[in-house]
């Protein structure tokens, strides 16, 4: 079960893929991420994270989304 540990996308390594489990935090955040295609059940790959707790960029469905660090901490994934 250890490989199914739930972490935030901030903790993913560059190039690592994972499946979105849930998006914590307010409805607004979830709503916006949802509309951009980041939602539970989706597979994402981490592209990069910017320095000094900058945005985390993930690719989802061949499209890259940059998510501010605080918001990124609320995106919980399990590594696949």
């Amino acid at each position, binding site marked *: 079960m250890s490989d199914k540990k739930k972490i935030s996308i901030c903790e993913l390594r560059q190039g690592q893929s994972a499946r979105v489990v849930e998006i914590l935090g307010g409805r607004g955040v979830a709503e916006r991420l949802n509309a951009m295609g980041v939602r539970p059940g989706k597979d994402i790959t981490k592209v990069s994270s910017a320095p000094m707790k900058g945005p985390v960029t993930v690719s989802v469905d061949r499209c890259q989304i*940059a998510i501010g660090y605080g918001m990124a901490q609320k995106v919980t994934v399990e590594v696949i």
Partner: protein
Amino acid sequence: MRILLMGNPNVGKSALFSRITGTRAVVSNYAGTTVGFTKGSMKLGNEEIEVIDVPGTYSLEPTSKAEEVAAKMLQEGDVVINVVDATNLERNLYLTLELLEKGLPMIVALNLWDDTKHRGITIDAAKLESLLGVPVVPTVAVSGQGIKELVEHISEARSVKPAPRTKEERWAAVGGIITEAQTLAHRHHTWLERLQDASLKPRTGIPIAILALVASFFAVRGVGEGIIQYISDPIFHNLWQPVMMRLSDALGGAGFWHDVLVGRLIDGSINFSQSMGVLTTGLYIEFGVVLPYILIFYLVLGIMEDIGYLPRLAVLLDSIMHRLGMHGYAIIPSMLGMGCAVPALMATRILESKRERFIAATLICIAIPCAASQAMIFGLVGAKGWQYVTIVFAVHFIVWIVMGLILNRTVKGFSPELLIEIPPYRLPSPRGVLSKLWLRVWSFLKEALPIVLGAIFVVSVLYSLGVFDAIANFTAPLVSGIFGLPKEAVVAIIVGFMRKDIAIGMLAPLSLTAGQLVVGSVVLTMFFPCVAAFVMFAKELGFKRLLAALGIMIIATIVVGGLLNLIL
């Protein structure tokens, strides 16, 4: 009849709009290029139809000002052309289904169709059409492919109006459609994709960002200077000068109209930087000095925009920008501000919170000199040595940082986090780049020229009435005491309310020292927005916020100008 072009951000709505209406619209490769709405018209049969280019939105629950505009517009349309990015069908179809549920007659433009092939994406357009229940037409707005078919199918737009779904149901429906209409093949990374990842990852991205910005700066400076030296100066001195001397003779070499049109003769001849006539200095500053820089600035910016670089810069700078009270995307209006504050203030609409917009807008007005001001600083201050130009720019940069830090601590409200789509790199088309350049240069000339000529006219009149002497004496304690400038410099400060370039130009006849020129240019660019920016600020952020920004600007100018005077 009114047609709305709607879709996700950065799917090519503006390009499509230009194609079907023939109206030029600014097209770039990033989300949020269109923040207001652009109207145009087209002929369909014998009917004249209004077409509206609506800002992009991911869903109909608006999260930013631009998306709010989109949602509101929906109530006023008769037909929707839903522009869909064929390379990103799944996410785009979410909005498509939302739009269908609203019940407006609709047709889908499957745009960026040419991009699907090399991305290994195959879409069965006929299948998609039968699944959605509305016409689907593959298009390539940039090249014009499929536009004729799209227009022909507008009359077949249908209202399907499925029962409203919940979010989950909608995504499930999207999933169903995708499975049936789209197949994905594996493919290898192209060099463009490698480059796009390299410019996003910090280790390679930061050097690339520094390189891109430094190269842009030197390109703008070098080419701008080159155009002035080899094209505009020769034209003015060899061709225009004799014409103006003739006019001067015809007007008798002096008198009111002579001073207004030709200006004062200096050592018996016209001096384009100092005569201050509408037809001499006025035209020379705008066409001879400012226009060359405007041209090259917007060319470089346009290429960066069309490649899709700016959102990557926004990501890299996000954490720094947060300390200044904004998120990374504020770098886009800020960079536009290096061209002109007016479109920059409008572009602050891509920022979600009022606080963030206020901070970005205030910083644009206070610490980002526009291309016209920069051109004059290059010319006037640069003549004293480039180290002084460097000081002027360094001061602005420091003010930008310090004011940002202060505003971040003092302005109430919240600044939301960055959440943006990073567009794929695209090779800019020369035609697209040039047509955008023309659009921007034209709107600069259209807006700036009347104010420039008007400002010089007003100055000439006030001079001849002797009003300035009275003002100069009255304001001498501030201008001379704090800024260390001759009291006549107040005239430039007053002109600065109208146009910054002319205002900086008015420092030329005052025979200032290098240090005074530095103080003068900094004070002129900081203390107050020009009238066009003033109006736009009030329109975009409201009069109360404008007053607050003005207070901040005046205090900051006095502090910075005073300090510089002490140091230099």
